[in-house]
């Protein structure tokens, strides 16, 4: 039955998709909304999607929906800051984790959305080039060169973050 399949998929994939959306949207409410929209859209199309492509389809849908939201946000020029969220974390360990997470989100949101998706699929979803190429409907060599470009950008961003942190420390 389709609905059982859907339920299993929801249990298996919603956490991964939710975390992907958190990384690029940097806002819990938006991540929840897009996650919901993604699964509802998937459910409507489920019959016409190959089972082996379910995950690709979900990520592609989430990506497009998130992209639309980011465009709308940019149009409104609304800046999203999540610093209040960090205040909820009292003990040092989780505060460090949270800070590290914010740095990662910050870095990924400086990439083009397509580059962030590539990084997501390779690093966090452990997809190989072939699977990523299928998800993005492109070639493996394009995946490789785009990933290299994304990583070079990340190297720069990480180095800038380090400089900023050092500057902050020297001020205090």
């Amino acid at each position: 039955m389709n609905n059982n399949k859907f339920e299993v998929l929801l249990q298996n994939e919603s956490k991964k998709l939710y975390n992907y959306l958190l990384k690029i949207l940097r806002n819990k409410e938006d991540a929840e909304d897009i996650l919901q929209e993604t699964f509802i859209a998937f459910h409507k199309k489920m019959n016409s999607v190959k089972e082996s492509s379910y995950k690709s389809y979900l990520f592609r849908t989430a990506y497009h929906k998130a992209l639309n939201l980011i465009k709308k946000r940019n149009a409104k020029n609304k800046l999203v800051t999540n610093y209040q969220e960090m205040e909820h974390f009292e003990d040092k360990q989780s505060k460090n984790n949270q800070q590290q997470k914010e740095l990662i989100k910050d870095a990924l949101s400086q990439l083009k959305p397509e580059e962030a998706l590539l990084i997501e699929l390779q690093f966090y979803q452990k997809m190989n080039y072939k699977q990523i190429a299928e998800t993005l409907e492109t070639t493996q060599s394009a995946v490789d060169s785009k990933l290299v470009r994304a990583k070079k950008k990340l190297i720069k961003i990480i180095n800038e973050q380090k400089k900023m942190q050092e500057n902050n420390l020297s001020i205090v």
Partner: protein
Amino acid sequence: MKQKDECSFEKKLNAYIAGELSEIEYNKVREHISSCHLCQNEIRELQQVDNFLFQYTEEEVPAGLNEKILNSVSQSHTDPFMRKVVSFSIAASVLISFMAGILLSSGLYADSSDSNITIGEDSLYSYFEGDYDV
């Protein structure tokens, strides 16, 4: 003036780390790296990115969200046409009971006294104004 040295192997390094090269290519690159400082530096930087990204710890999906999704999906399970039919018939039956109410209050009691009609109209009016909880 070209400042940065480049190595022809550089483009293959990401695929090398990711394990995306064939065995023959992999061995070629590995052999090259052992004697190329440029590629050694490049690999170090790429691995730095990996280490950075892997520090992300996943968050749980907010409680109840999966259930919410399941609910909205099972609600939309009836096909759109049937949903329209159902909502139309609900709207129609509400309208019919209103019409019946007007007919009852104005028709049945029309002859008994004028005040009854006024009460009937009043209550209908205040219904639309939202004075009553539905």
